[in-house]
């Protein structure tokens, strides 16, 4: 057994040296091509699946735990469809409710915050029901969640829409019977450039200091803007060390996403199929 492989290799080498040489290069080329593919996909993936990237904080890093979490997340994704969504998208979450047994609880709202990584990833939905603002925080990988639907897939100008709490209620009012808005195939995710009108002060936060793009003129006295200007830190974007500590290096991202790529690709393809035809007539078996 042991002697056959070297002999075979030797004979092949004697037979055609050139062919042997190409044979060694082709498997080497293949991963390189794959790697460039994943590198291209990484940009896409880190937008769609940000929770697969670990917390860049050094003291929280633990490669084994991260790997286990990723496998758990993929296992969960095999059971429930967790679609691509962004802050600003309108979602409907159906979950089993312990407090009303036998009933499924459905909540429709705009995603105003998305954070956490790994199994702790969560998102905050907001809606105004009967003139009362309601927000619910959902864990993305919560086993009680039966399904997440994206009713309107879009992005906003800001990374967090917490200012909707101080905005007029019509900006966060969504009908619970809203229908799914289907985007044309292959179209990029649209960015909603709506400018929100805030209520007059008092607010929950000093929005003039947050450098928000999605709000209308705040109509404050000049001293507020002066103070905001004093406190801003425009040099931080040039602080390479800070940026490095805040992000996961690209090499690691490629490694992570190439590990989970096949599973994600499968679920992504399934999603696209699902988007195409939502209802499949059940066929009678046997």
């Amino acid at each position, binding site marked *: 057994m042991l002697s056959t492989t070297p002999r075979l290799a030797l004979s092949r080498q004697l037979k055609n040296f050139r062919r042997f040489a190409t044979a060694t290069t082709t498997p080497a080329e293949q991963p390189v091509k794959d790697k460039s593919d994943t590198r291209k996909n990484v940009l896409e993936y880190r937008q769609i699946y940000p929770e697969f990237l670990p917390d860049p904080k050094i003291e929280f890093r633990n490669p084994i735990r991260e790997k286990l979490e990723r496998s758990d997340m993929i296992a969960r994704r095999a059971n429930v469809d967790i679609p691509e969504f962004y802050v600003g998208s309108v979602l409907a979450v159906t979950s089993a409710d312990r407090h009303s047994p036998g009933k499924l*609880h459905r909540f429709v709202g705009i995603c105003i915050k998305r954070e956490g990584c790994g199994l702790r990833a969560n998102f905050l939905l907001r809606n105004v*029901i009967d*003139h*009362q603002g*309601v927000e619910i*925080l*959902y864990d993305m990988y919560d086993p*009680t969640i039966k399904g997440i639907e994206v009713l309107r897939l879009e992005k906003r100008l800001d990374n967090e829409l917490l200012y909707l*709490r101080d905005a007029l209620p019509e900006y966060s009012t969504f009908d619970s019977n809203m229908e799914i808005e289907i985007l044309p195939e292959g179209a990029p995710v649209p960015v909603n450039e709506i400018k929100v009108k805030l209520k007059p002060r008092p607010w929950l936060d000093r929005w003039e200091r947050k450098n928000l793009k999605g709000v209308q003129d705040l109509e404050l006295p000049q001293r507020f803007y002066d103070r905001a200007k004093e406190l801003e830190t425009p040099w931080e974007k040039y602080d390479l060390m800070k940026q490095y500590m805040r992000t996961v290096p690209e090499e690691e991202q490629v490694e992570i996403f190439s590990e989970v790529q096949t599973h994600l690709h499968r679920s992504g393809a399934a999603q696209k199929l699902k988007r195409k035809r939502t209802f499949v007539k059940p066929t009678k078996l046997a």
Partner: protein
Amino acid sequence: MFNKSALLRISSLLSQPASKNFHLSSTCNEIRKLARLRVVDNSEIGKRAMAEGKPPRCIHVYNKTEVGLIGDRVLVAIKGEKKKAILVGLKQNQKPKVPKFDSNNIVLIDDSGTPLGTRIHVPIPTILRTILKERTHAKGADYTKLLGIASKFV
């Protein structure tokens, strides 16, 4: 220091009802003593208090920590009266899947747990079903009557 007319003018300013319609302190996100609340049922006293812009204040929380959480019973001062109420929606951050509201909502009840109003016009968190059932004892007050007048659960 002040002459009599100035004093009179100040006292007349202080007695003006318009000066009571706004509050200088920010809203308390935690229900403690003197936190302002919002009545969300259609009881006569609650409706009048909210319409006049004199929201009830919490003057006691019936638990050990003195911080009101969802489903806790509170004593409120409303239009010069003392009434009991149940917290049915809070502004502070909640656990996952428990709704967080934009205002601190209460429903007025009497000593036996019967609500003073006949309808609640905002959504009520479903977790209250469990909490209020736990708080209700066979011979004591029945707080689950509140769930019967809720119009919507969230």
